C-alpha cells in the first residue's frame, strides 16, 4: 500500500531510562479522553487503556535484575496495519501530521483493526460506559464519549491539536507550523520525570527532530515495516534488544 507523506509528522519520543512506571500518563490519558472506569477493572484485557505501560526486565535474577518501563500509546504508524483492513473507512491516516484517526460514529465494531495491530493499541468498548457517582459532571468537554461496540484508541489527544491550531490562527501564525510545545498530549503534561517529548519531527526547531537521531533511539517492530511515529530512547542494550524480534544469528 502506498505510504502517505505529510509536511508535518507529529512524533512522540519516550526516554525509557527516565520512565519510572508511575502510571501518571495512563491516568491522565483516561481523564483527558473520557474513558469510563470499569466495574471489573482487574480484567486488564477488557479495560480501555489507550496508553499502557509495559514492564520490561533483563531476564536475570536478583541482584542482577533490572527493570524498565515502556509506555505504549498508539504508534500512529506511517504504514498502519489497521487502516487498509477497516471495511467502512472508520480509521484513516490522511490528515496533515499523520495521526491515525478513528471515527467512532462510523465504526461498526468488527474488530478487524484490533486483529491487525500487533501493538495491541486498539481497544474495544465491550460494555456500556458508566460514570459512577456524578463523575459524568467532570467529563472533559473537548473529547467525545463513545458508545459501547466501537473500537477506540489513542489519537495523540487530537483535540489539543485543534486547540493549538485555533490559538495559532488567533495569533496570526500558520496553524500547520506550530511552535514547539504548543501542542502537548495529556500524557506528556502529566509525566513527572519528563520522559515524554513530543513535536513535529520534520521541523528542525522542535526538540524531537534531534531526539530521533540519537544513536540510542529505536522503534518497536521495525522489521515488520509499520514505520511508527513513536520512538523510544534507552542507553541500555537489553532494552533496545527487546524492541524487535531477532533470529539467533541476527542479534544487535
Amino acid at each position, binding site marked *: 500500500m502506498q505510504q502517505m507523506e505529510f509536511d508535518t509528522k507529529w512524533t512522540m519520543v519516550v526516554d525509557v531510562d527516565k520512565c519510572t512506571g508511575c502510571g501518571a500518563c495512563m491516568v491522565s490519558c483516561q481523564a483527558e479522553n473520557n474513558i469510563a472506569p470499569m466495574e471489573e477493572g482487574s480484567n486488564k484485557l477488557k479495560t480501555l487503556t489507550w496508553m499502557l505501560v509495559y514492564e520490561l526486565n533483563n531476564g536475570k535474577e536478583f541482584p542482577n535484575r533490572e527493570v524498565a518501563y515502556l509506555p505504549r500509546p498508539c504508534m500512529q504508524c506511517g504504514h498502519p496495519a489497521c487502516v487498509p483492513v477497516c471495511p*467502512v473507512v*472508520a480509521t484513516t491516516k490522511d490528515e496533515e501530521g499523520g495521526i491515525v484517526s478513528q471515527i467512532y460514529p462510523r*465504526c*461498526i465494531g468488527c474488530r478487524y483493526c484490533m486483529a491487525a495491530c*500487533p501493538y495491541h493499541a*486498539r481497544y474495544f468498548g465491550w*460494555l456500556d460506559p458508566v460514570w459512577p457517582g456524578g463523575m459524568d459532571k467532570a467529563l472533559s468537554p473537548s473529547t467525545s464519549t463513545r458508545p459501547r461496540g466501537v473500537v477506540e484508541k489513542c489519537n495523540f489527544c487530537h483535540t489539543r491539536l485543534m486547540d493549538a491550531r485555533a490559538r495559532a490562527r488567533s495569533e496570526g501564525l500558520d496553524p500547520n507550523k506550530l511552535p514547539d510545545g504548543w501542542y502537548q498530549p495529556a500524557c506528556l503534561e502529566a509525566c513527572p520525570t519528563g520522559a515524554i517529548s513530543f513535536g513535529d519531527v520534520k521541523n528542525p526547531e522542535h526538540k524531537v527532530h534531534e531526539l530521533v537521531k540519537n544513536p540510542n533511539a529505536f522503534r518497536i517492530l521495525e522489521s515488520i515495516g509499520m514505520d511508527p511515529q513513536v520512538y523510544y530512547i534507552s542507553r541500555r542494550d537489553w532494552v533496545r534488544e527487546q524492541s524487535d524480534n531477532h533470529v539467533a544469528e541476527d542479534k544487535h
Partner: protein
Amino acid sequence: MDSNLFPEGVKRCGLPKFLLWMVFPTIILLWGAYAAAKIFYYGIGVTGLDNYFGFGLWITFDLAVIALGAGAFFTGFLKYILKIDQLKNIINLAVILGFLCYSGAMLILTMDIGQPIRAWFGYWHPNVHSMLTEVIFCITCYCTVLIIEFIPIILEQKQLNKIPFLHHFAHHLHVNMALFAGIGTFLSTFHQGSLGGMYGVMFGRPYAFREGFFIWPWTFFLFVLSAVGSGPVFTVLVCTLIEKMTGKKLVEYKVKALMGKIAGTMLCVYMFFKIIDTWAWAVGYLPTVGMTFDQMFYGNVYGQWLLWTELVLCGIVPAVMLITPSIRNNPSLLYTAAILDCIGVSINRYVFTVQTIAIPVMPFDNWEIYVPNWAEWATSLMICAYGALVLSLCYRYLPVFPQEVKLNKK
C-alpha cells in the same frame, strides 16, 4: 396427520415422534436465543472475547461453517456448469446446507459486530482496500443466490406445487439455475478467498501474513481450495447422518463416493500448495521478521500438534483415502476420511483466527489464552440447532432426495 404434506411416495414417522425430536434442537435454540438477547442488551462484554482476542469462537465458527457449506456452490458448479448429472441426487441437500451455513454465519455476525444497526455501513462507506468489504458484499450476494436456489425446492412441496403459478415459477427458476449456479460459484469463490485474504494481508501478524499474487495473498487461494476440498464431503456426512437417524437410504452410495472423489482430488491439490506454503512461510518469511517457526507455538493450547494434525492426520491422510478407489468405496472408510477432512479445515480456520492473534509479536508481550464462554457456545450451538430444525422440516416436507422412493422400495 400431516401426511398430505409429505413428498410423493415417501414414508415419514408419526407427527408426535417428529415433534418429540424437534423439542431437543428447540431447547438449544432457546438457550442460544437467551444468550443472544443478553448480548444485544448488555453488549459483547458478556462473552469471553477481550482486547487481545477480538476474534474468537464466533469467527472460527463462521469460517468453518462457510468452508463446510462450500458443498453448495461447488456441487452446483459441477452439476449445472460441468453437467455431472449424477450429482442431481444430492444437489438439493447441498443447496439447503449451503443456505443454512451462510444464513447461520450471518446470524452470528449480527451479534459479533459491536454496532449491529450500522451493519449496512459496509455498503454505504465501503473501503475498497479491505478484504472484509469484499467479504461483506460477496456473503450478502451469495446468501441471496442461495435463497433463490432454495426457493424452487420449497415450491416443489406437494401442496404448493399444485398451485399453477408456483409450479411454473419453480420450473422457470430451475431452467435458469445454471445462471444462478454460475453467479453463486463466482461469488462464493471470491468470498471464500476473501476470508483467507483477510488474514493473509495482516502484515503485523507473522502467523497469518503471506505474500501473494496481485492484491491477493496466498491464503486467498488456499481458503478456496480447502473449502472445495471439504464442503462436498460435509454434505455426504450430513446425508449419512440423516440416513442413520431415519433408517432410510436417501442417496445412492456411488453418488457419495463421487462426492468423496471430487473432494479428495481438490484436497490433494490443496495439500500440495498448503505444504509448500507452510514450508516457504517457515523458512522464508518468518526469518525476515526475526521470528522462528518454534516461536509460533506455545504450550498445549497453541502447540505444534495443531499444525501436524491439520496437515497430516486431517490433511494428507484423508486426501489419500479419498482418492484411493478401494478405500473410497468402503462406506466406513469414506466417512472416516470425510470426518478427518472436516476437522482439518476447522482446525485451519481456528488457528488462523485464534493462534494468529494469540502470538505475542512484540518481544516483551505475553501469550494469552482464549477460552470462549457460555454465551459464545450457546449462540454458536443455536445456529446448529437452527440448522437441525430447518433440515428436519425440509426432510419431512420437501422433496430433497430424488432417489429416496426408489432406494427404499421393499
